[in-house]
């Protein structure tokens, strides 16, 4: 039921890619996205596809898992493809059917744009599948920390994100439990019109809110009891370090980008 919702969708195995420094992974993901846009021809996508495939292999990710991230995007993908196919203009007409004109240029643009979308999503999925949310926010905090000088609350933001991510599974579990408890008392969450369904959520939402606030209070207390006072002077248990492997990853992505922009 609710447990099927995968958020953050981290795939917990140990691999070369999983062990990479999160900062490097975040930067490389952005570099990858830029790289994808540098490629103009269809040939340029061969290194991109090869890279995604190799990265997935190196991360011990099933390709199926990677493609699952595309499912919510299928309508946008189809829409992008169709729109570009019919309305790009171009001189070399391939098919002409009444008012529908498909040109060679249109077909190319359609493929290019859809392919780019697919690459963007799989590239981002590579990051989220191989990096646990906590490590990810840690990396993000470190990357954003130079901005602290201009008053950007990097630590607070990262802490908020970490806590929010940490509590998603907890709250989902709680929601699942309360839902079941109310179902055991004959509640029906699945049938009825929108109004009835909205009303049926009250027995779920009220206890969920009560417990979320209770948890928030408890957590604040527990943090204060352990002398939490923001990011100032805080040391870390896991110090991020750039290793040889990170440089190898940088080199691979750089190679991919160069190849893509040349082809």
């Amino acid at each position, binding site marked *: 039921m609710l447990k099927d919702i995968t958020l953050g969708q981290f795939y917990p195995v140990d691999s070369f890619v999983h062990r990479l420094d999160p900062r490097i992974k975040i930067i490389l993901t952005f570099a990858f996205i830029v790289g994808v846009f540098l490629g103009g021809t269809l040939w340029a996508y061969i290194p991109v596809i090869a890279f995604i495939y190799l990265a997935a292999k190196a991360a011990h990710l099933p390709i199926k898992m990677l493609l699952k991230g595309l499912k919510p995007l299928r309508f946008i993908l189809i829409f992008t493809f169709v729109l570009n196919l019919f309305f790009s203009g171009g001189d070399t007409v391939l098919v002409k059917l009444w008012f529908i004109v498909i040109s060679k240029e249109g077909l190319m643009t359609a493929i290019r744009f859809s392919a780019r979308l697919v690459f963007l999503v799989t590239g981002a999925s590579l990051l989220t599948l191989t990096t646990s949310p906590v490590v990810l926010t840690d990396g993000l905090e470190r990357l954003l920390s130079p901005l602290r000088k201009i008053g950007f609350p990097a630590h607070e933001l990262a802490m908020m994100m970490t806590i929010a991510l940490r509590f998603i599974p907890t709250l989902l579990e709680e929601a699942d439990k309360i839902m*079941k408890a109310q179902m055991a008392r004959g509640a029906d969450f699945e049938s009825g019109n929108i109004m009835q369904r909205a009303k049926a959520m009250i027995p779920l939402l009220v206890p969920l809110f009560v417990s979320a606030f209770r948890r928030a209070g408890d957590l604040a207390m527990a943090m204060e009891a352990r002398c939490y006072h923001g990011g100032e002077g805080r040391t870390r248990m896991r110090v991020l370090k750039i290793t040889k492997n990170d440089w190898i990853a940088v080199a691979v992505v750089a190679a991919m980008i160069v190849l893509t922009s040349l082809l």
Partner: protein
Amino acid sequence: MPIVIENMSHVYQPGSPFKADALTDISLTIEDGELLALIGHTGSGKSTLAQHLNGLLQPTSGRVLVNGQDINEKGTNRRALRQQVGLLFQYAEYQLFEETVYKDIAFGPKNQGLTGDELDRRVREAFALVHLPEDCLEKSPFELSGGQMRRVALAGVLAMKPSVLVLDEPIAGLDPRGREELMQIIDELHDKGVTIVLISHNMDDVARMATKVAVLDKGCLAMHGTPREVFSRGDELEKMGLDVPQTVQLCRQLRRGGMDVPDCLTDEELAQAIVSALKGGKADA
């Protein structure tokens, strides 16, 4: 309304890296009027089993028959089933949501379609069963103490008049007095003829109240029998990380010290056994 479980297995998130075998090949029959205690170490699958009894979870394989009817067959009336098999979750006080205790208890019977006098009667009957002060009925459930809230939640289940009541660790986190009161309520319900499935870590309560005990170990049914049968296998229970009742513990220590006493479940029985062991020396206890 007997419940028969046939070769039931349950796997959480099959086919994913988070796959976990929660229950493996469980066969168990719960007879009418029984008080079955379900014991097992944390994570042994007790709660998962409990949620199969009223169809909140569906077995990955195997069947659950309530009154001879497979509850996971298509076209089963789930709502009617959940009325017959009431389930009180762990920390049930967190399910309360209404403005008043009265309204919260009425939630279940209302979902059954009851209205007016019948509804009112059900609520008051259920409320009377859990021994709360009369003025609680119009209070907000959030004003009550934890133990009282849990009893309100129990009343909410009882208001549906279930013939089988499944209780998932009903005394967890309560103070000694709250525990005592709740166990008394359960005892009274059992006397009224309600079949009870009780998940508990308190072996003394189990020894005192249960007519049958089922032991789960890592998702498998390790033992099933009367409390006497089950608690006579103390060594095995300890290996599963489970206790035996204090009376049985004492008996075992006495035997180790050379006194000839059998395993006793109640205080009276134990006193008798010690007396006759002291009197008769090595005579039969």
